[in-house]
């Protein structure tokens, strides 16, 4: 029995060491980030937000660290680690961390918090919610997709049915509908109700894409973080289909799929995170809500890269016009 205990204990210790990475010590301004599940290298919102902190490290010379959440029960534990180590600022990434962030923010009024994809009503004094009007950018992507489809069907699907995901899908659909209105076409959006139920299983992303392609979609926008990379693999294997990336420019972050990426719906979380940290560093931090829009370049669509020649000049010009109209508020994105 004792032998078995020793074996278990050593295994557990090894596990604990491997699970806890990141962290750090020392003086100066320190900012910590708690990721959502999906990992720091998800080529999506965790990675982009972390980019923001790394930019802050370079520009402001502060210390940064991250803790990865492997499951939803890790959120509180990870936040409390940073709190215990007296970090000056804690950035939490993701809608699902909303409740835990609120709890810790209220318990620790002297620490500044920023949370990506969540805003509080009423606002909390030491929390800045970083939210993005991605519907505006997704609207442009939808319009572009409707103009580019050969089959008359475009597809989308989400990870989990939560507002930061559905906002993309609704904007995308509105963009397609607007194109139909303007050009008297009948492009259909498939998968508005389709959610794979997680943000991790890339295999599910591939299967969802194959199902959409089998039903006739030739342009797919996966709104599910790394799960979308599975979609990219399916798109690459089916000639004539294209992909619309989300969060970052996938032609850069997932370069191996650049040849099938029509464009990406950008959600510039890195800029927003950097600004939040800068405010906290300079001592001018105030709780509230930051909204990234087309107007302040908080959201946008990426260049067409390899599809530059395929997108007609008229379509490109129309997109410019629509962007101006959305900023002016004359087009409703449906969100």
């Amino acid at each position, binding site marked *: 029995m004792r032998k*078995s205990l020793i074996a278990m204990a050593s295994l557990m210790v090894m596990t604990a060491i491997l699970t806890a*990475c990141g962290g750090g010590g020392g003086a100066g301004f320190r900012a910590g980030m708690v990721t959502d599940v*999906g990992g720091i*290298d998800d080529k999506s919102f965790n990675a982009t937000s972390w980019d923001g902190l790394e930019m802050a490290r370079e520009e402001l010379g502060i210390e940064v660290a991250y803790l990865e959440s*492997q499951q939803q029960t890790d959120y509180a534990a990870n936040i409390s680690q940073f709190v215990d180590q007296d970090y000056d600022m804690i950035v939490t990434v993701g809608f699902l961390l909303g409740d835990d962030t609120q709890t810790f923010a209220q318990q620790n009024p002297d620490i500044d918090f920023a949370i990506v994809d969540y805003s509080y009503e009423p606002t909390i004094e030491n929390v800045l919610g970083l939210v993005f009007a991605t519907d505006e950018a997704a609207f442009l992507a939808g319009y572009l997709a409707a103009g580019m489809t050969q089959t008359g069907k475009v597809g989308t699907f989400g990870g989990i049915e939560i507002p930061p995901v559905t906002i993309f899908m609704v904007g995308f659909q509105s963009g397609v509908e607007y194109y139909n209105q303007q050009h008297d076409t009948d492009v259909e959006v498939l*998968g508005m*109700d389709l959610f794979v139920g997680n943000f991790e299983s*890339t295999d599910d992303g591939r299967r969802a894409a194959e*199902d959409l392609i*089998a039903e006739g979609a030739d342009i797919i926008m996966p709104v599910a973080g790394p799960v979308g990379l599975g979609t990219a693999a399916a798109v690459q294997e089916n000639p004539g289909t294209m992909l619309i990336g989300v969060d970052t420019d996938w032609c850069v972050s997932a370069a191996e799929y650049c040849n099938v990426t029509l464009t990406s719906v950008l959600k510039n979380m890195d800029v927003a995170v950097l600004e939040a940290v800068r405010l906290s560093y300079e001592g001018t931090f105030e709780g509230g809500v930051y909204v990234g829009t087309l107007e302040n370049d908080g959201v946008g669509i990426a260049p067409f890269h390899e599809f530059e020649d395929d997108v007609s000049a008229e379509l490109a010009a129309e997109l410019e016009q629509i962007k101006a109209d959305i900023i002016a508020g004359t087009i409703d994105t449906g969100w």
Partner: protein
Amino acid sequence: MDKRRKKFFYALIYAGAALLLALCLTLCATATYTQPEQSTTFVLNAGSESQALPVGDLVLPSAMTWYVYGLVCAFVGGWQAARLLQRNGWALLAVSALAGIAGGVWAATGALYAAVLLMGGEVWAGAALLTGLAGLVFLAGLAGLVCARRRISLSIALTAIAILAVFAFLIWAARDRSTNLTGLLSSALLRSVPIALAALSGVLCERCAVINIAIEGMMLTSAFFAALFGSVAANIWHWPSWAAFICGLFGALLAGALLGLLLAVLAVHFKVDQIIAGTAINILAVGLTSFLSSRILSEFQNLNNPGILNRVSIPLLSRIPVIGPIFFEQNVLVYMLFAVMAITHIMLFYTRWGLRTRAVGEHPRAADTLGIDVFKNRYVNVTLGGMVAGLGGAFLILGSVGRFDEMMTAGKGFIGLAAMIFGKWMPFGAFGAALIFGFADALQTRLAILQVAIPSQFLLMAPYLVTMIALAGVIGEAIPPAADGQPYEKQ
């Protein structure tokens, strides 16, 4: 059977009967509200490029098909009920009397309904609903009378009903539209591959009485090493893609075998509680892969790009419509699943090694007395089980998405365990169960694409609901190997 178990068993039959009757009621009621002229189109050609001979679309009249399926469900529901009633003669009599009356009502309302339809007027929903109800009760009674005296394999009939009911639902969901049936079935198979491999891994381990709940962790770790080894071979050594694939597969099998060995050492040698040992390995796998992935894969992107296997078409067989694209135009790892499944079955039930393994799982003391090395047998089996789980991890990387991402197995290993139990610790059973899970998953995707007015959260429950229904109505009891989970101590 002791008394309590018997009671439970009858409760299950009651539940099954009630469920099927309720199902057919809904089927018929909904069919009534479907316009008579609506039809459902099933596309039979594969959605992607395929060598299969093209075939025409399958067009079914929605409402008619629904009625037919509803009646079949009623028949089997009555059958189920009759199995109980045969014990009580008076109940059987009462039911048949009721059925007689209901039959009369059915005939009358049926005629009325037909008249309304023929006159081209609006469907009189009330009459139609009554028709459905009465007809069902009638058929149920009839079925009861007929079947009470006969014992026909119930599970086969129930399985057929379940399949019919699912397609009936699909027909309703796709009324006035079309959906790709071949794509749906192909997707079901591909979704079931990792689950089936996980289940086979479980079968190998539990047949020799070692519970392996570490399959999830084994798959995750092997997925990581498949990506790493494959990428190193492809992008650093610039091996041709087939060689890189073999290297990746080797990495996955190695990782799986090592974790299997670790589990065996903990469970067999140190006699650690197997559930806890498995959980520890799962946690270790998450930590290890997350750590290595953030230190290696995110730093060097070319170490996370092993490439994806091409599909291999089997000559001639792949030309068969529908069947060809589903079974004979897949990648090598899918074919390997079929091979592993068949080999496991043959090894377990037709070889000396298999007999010994089963003996060790049922009664290790007796096996030991007869000179079988229980420890060695368990070491070998659990390591092999780890390698099969490793194959599952390799499929996720080399056969599906071509890159590793943290936590990418997302519970498939655990669902594999459920499939193993569902399949009664038999290789083919486990594969069948995995297919059902895969199908439920593919079906819910299809329903979501067809925009059925069911919330996504409920659709995502579908695979698990299927399990519960199947366990209640079809499987009955699943009995594990007698010594499952108990460490063996030599005297």
